[in-house]
């Protein structure tokens, strides 16, 4: 299928593009109804494959001729599975929370009938008179999609859909430029690395290009080990060519002929889709020897990482690629001068590389106009936790946390109060209400003690204990520490012990000072970024939620009533509806008994603090409450020595 090499790259690409556009037009203007369904990992987790199956079966059974397209992540993960239905002459309508039952209804009522089922619709994707558009929601006012622009729109397994939507035009343009000019464009765009630290991308490319070596390599870092982060996975699953195109341009700019995509083994769908994408671009001659007849050759290999968090650290990643133990090494030398096989190696994050084609395509100035003076472009976050609209969002740098959480994210559900936002995962920190007007950019977040990280963002409300949150992240880093250096190997384990004591009510007055000292020493003394940032969750919670630590230590009180040893469950006698015994059955250890006049009582000796009774008690009574400290528990009547009384 390769186009003949006698043509210019321009002519070669035009032929490829014409075909892609013709296919896309045929699809868009098809007289058949079109069903688009998001089958990235987020959709699959919510049951998208069953929905897909129902659509296929129902269409076959009812003999309807419709087109089904599988796309990637549309970003509204809270409403997965997501389906878009386009009937000729009508606006595309997006449906959320689709079940096989709803799928069957959509076929019978909308595809076969005329009822667009607005009760299941999130909104239309175009202005129309029938249904409000999804863009009327406030989140779209703040979102700006560059990296996610095509995600959820195109079939990631069809390169022509990428090309028809502007794909590979930047590669053609780049091949017509001098490599040095490309690097200067990237520098002028102000792009900074999306892998966490925000190193200026143009500078890194320049260092790599200028470093002496016999070969050069490009590595795409798709290790993505932060718990709760899945932006890179979503991009690889939804728009893999954007990353591949960015890599080829990077290779041309720095003078590399070989690239690797290092993906964690837990991302099988991403690996499969990248493999397909690589095969398709090679078939069209966009990858491989003599790309588009230009003379430049580049190949890409996919490598699967073992899934260790530390292997996302660049020197550990390279060690792992070389088959050595995945341990970090002291820098310098930096990979850009001495990396894979001791040769200059450009290592960039998935999102950094995916930002390259739009910058080349639309120009450095366009990109530099988005964001803040020091942080250009957009930031992609995986929004999770106590927020209405969880999912992937992309906003211009500089957007405030408040806008992101309350406008884009829709605020805190169930009328609860916001407490903190955890940004940057185990390397990041927890920021309080008073910092909500902080702009999201590399430097502001670092200054506040958090980190851009690679984009995990968890919202915490008043029911989250901050000491327990710090303990959770430290437990992660302790397990993921590679064990090479003293501070991180032994220091994180010591800090975790102290935190566990505090959450158990066994903290000592000197613990806070010891935590502070140790945290500062680990930050200053550890070998790699994992250890250097591991104290951040502790340092920020100590800084912004000091009183919660004090309460745990001095009063044995957990203000959020979360830590089990410091919390008791209690049934308010005045609220208990005597004849109901929902809680009794819900308790896994038979700790609840019927006391005088049928009022339910919890046997504190037996209670394992699972909280089942809180959920079981009907909301109109809400009789079960949590009490902390345990010493404030009102006296309860003793358990009658009957059949259930003995142990």
């Amino acid at each position, binding site marked *: 299928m390769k186009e003949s090499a006698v043509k210019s790259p321009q002519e070669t690409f035009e032929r490829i593009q014409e075909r892609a556009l013709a296919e896309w037009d045929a699809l868009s203007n098809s007289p058949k109804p079109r069903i688009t369904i998001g089958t990235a990992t987020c959709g699959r987790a919510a049951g998208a494959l069953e929905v897909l199956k129902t659509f296929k079966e129902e269409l076959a059974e009812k003999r309807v001729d419709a087109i089904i397209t599988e796309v990637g992540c549309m970003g509204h993960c809270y409403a997965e599975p997501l389906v878009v239905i386009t009937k000729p002459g009508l606006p595309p309508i997006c449906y959320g929370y689709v079940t096989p039952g709803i799928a069957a209804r959509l076929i019978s009522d909308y595809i076969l009938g005329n009822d667009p089922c607005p009760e299941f619709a999130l909104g239309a994707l175009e202005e129309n008179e029938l249904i409000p558009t999804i863009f009327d929601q406030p989140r779209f006012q703040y979102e700006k999609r560059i990296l996610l622009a095509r995600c959820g729109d195109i079939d990631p397994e069809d390169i022509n859909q990428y090309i028809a939507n502007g794909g590979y035009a930047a590669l053609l343009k780049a091949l017509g430029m001098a490599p040095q000019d490309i690097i200067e464009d990237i520098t002028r765009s102000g792009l900074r690395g999306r892998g966490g630290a925000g190193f200026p991308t143009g500078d890194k490319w320049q260092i790599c290009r200028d470093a002496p070596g016999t070969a050069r390599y490009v590595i795409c870092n798709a290790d993505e080990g932060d718990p709760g982060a899945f932006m890179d996975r979503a991009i690889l699953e939804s728009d893999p060519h954007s990353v591949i195109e960015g890599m080829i341009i990077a290779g041309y700019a720095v003078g590399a002929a070989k690239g690797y995509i290092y993906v964690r083994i837990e991302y099988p769908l991403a690996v499969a889709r990248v493999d397909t994408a690589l095969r398709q671009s090679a078939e069209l001659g966009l990858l491989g020897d003599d790309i588009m007849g230009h003379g430049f050759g580049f190949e890409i290999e996919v490598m699967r990482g073992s899934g260790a968090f530390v292997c996302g650290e660049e020197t550990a990643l390279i060690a792992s690629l070389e088959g050595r133990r995945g341990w970090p090494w002291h820098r310098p030398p930096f990979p850009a001068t001495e990396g894979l096989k001791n040769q200059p190696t450009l290592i960039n994050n998935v999102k950094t590389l995916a930002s390259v084609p739009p910058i080349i395509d639309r120009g450095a100035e366009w990109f530099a106009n988005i964001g803040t003076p020091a942080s250009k472009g957009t930031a992609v976050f995986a929004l999770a936790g106590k927020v209405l609209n969880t999912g992937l969002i992309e906003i211009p740098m500089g957007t405030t946390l408040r806008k992101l959480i309350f406008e884009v994210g829709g605020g805190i559900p169930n009328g609860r109060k916001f407490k903190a936002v955890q940004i940057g995962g185990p390397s990041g920190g927890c920021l309080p209400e008073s910092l909500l007007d902080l702009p999201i950019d590399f430097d502001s977040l670092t200054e506040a003690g958090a980190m851009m990280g690679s984009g995990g963002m968890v919202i915490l409300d008043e029911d989250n204990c901050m000491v327990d949150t710090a303990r959770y992240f430290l437990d992660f880093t*302790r397990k993921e520490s590679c064990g090479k250096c003293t501070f991180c190997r032994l220091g994180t*384990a010591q800090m975790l012990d102290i935190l566990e004591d505090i959450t158990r009510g066994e903290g000592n007055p000197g613990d806070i000072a010891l935590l502070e000292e140790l945290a500062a020493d680990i930050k200053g003394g550890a*070998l790699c970024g994992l250890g250097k940032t591991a104290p951040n969750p502790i340092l920020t919670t100590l800084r912004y939620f000091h009183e919660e630590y004090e309460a745990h230590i001095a009063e044995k009180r957990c203000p959020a009533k979360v830590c089990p040893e410091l919390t008791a469950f209690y049934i308010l006698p005045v609220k208990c509806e005597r004849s109901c015994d929902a809680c009794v059955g819900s308790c896994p250890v038979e700790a609840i008994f019927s006391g005088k006049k049928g009022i339910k009582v919890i046997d504190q000796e037996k209670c394992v603090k699972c909280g089942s009774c809180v959920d079981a008690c009907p909301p109109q009574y809400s009789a079960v409450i949590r009490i902390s400290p345990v010493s404030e528990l009102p006296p309860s009547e003793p358990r009658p020595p009957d059949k259930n009384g003995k142990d």
Partner: protein
Amino acid sequence: MEKIKLTIDGVPIRAKQGEKVLFAALDAGIYIPNLCAISGVRPHAGCRLCFVEIEGRPQPVTACTEEVAEGAIVHTDGPRIRRLQRTALELLLASHPIECKTCPANKHCELQNIASFLKVNLNTKRFRKKLRDLPVDDSHPDIILDPNMCVVCSKCIWACVEQRGIGALNYAFRGDRTIISAFGGDRLVDTRCDGCGLCAEVCPVGAISKNVKKST
């Protein structure tokens, strides 16, 4: 080759280009605590004991990774250096059995030396004692491996893998469970170990020792 001129603790020093500050200092008789550095080998940089301050650098740096630079002014003492060194040492001691009397490394143990240099009590109580209880491998006629003592300096791996090309030793586990063990199994006697004892010579503590009872 041109020599690099620098000052360490006020003493003018000349060192080979590419030499690390740690070895330049040690060669000049200036001691800097260290457990994991081997001259001429890519720095492991794991023990985090060799901190020094170099004028113009905002934070203390590890001397085993820092190349000598013309005109550099290096200090090996100071509150920031000592604080990091003591914390690192105390973390190591908290995870190390202090049974010096019965330890094969007694009196030539680097932990003892560094503790006395930094004036840290071997039985420091600053952190909690976190010992492991792993089986001692005394299967081999010449070598005894007691992983409970290991400070993960990696010198034995360098000796056995890089120096001898034998590969009888390997790392096992990660995080605070990281240890050295016999390659591919749990008994040194089942590996290619020929009992040369280089690992025991480089081990700074009593984790690997020559089997005195059996071989004499």
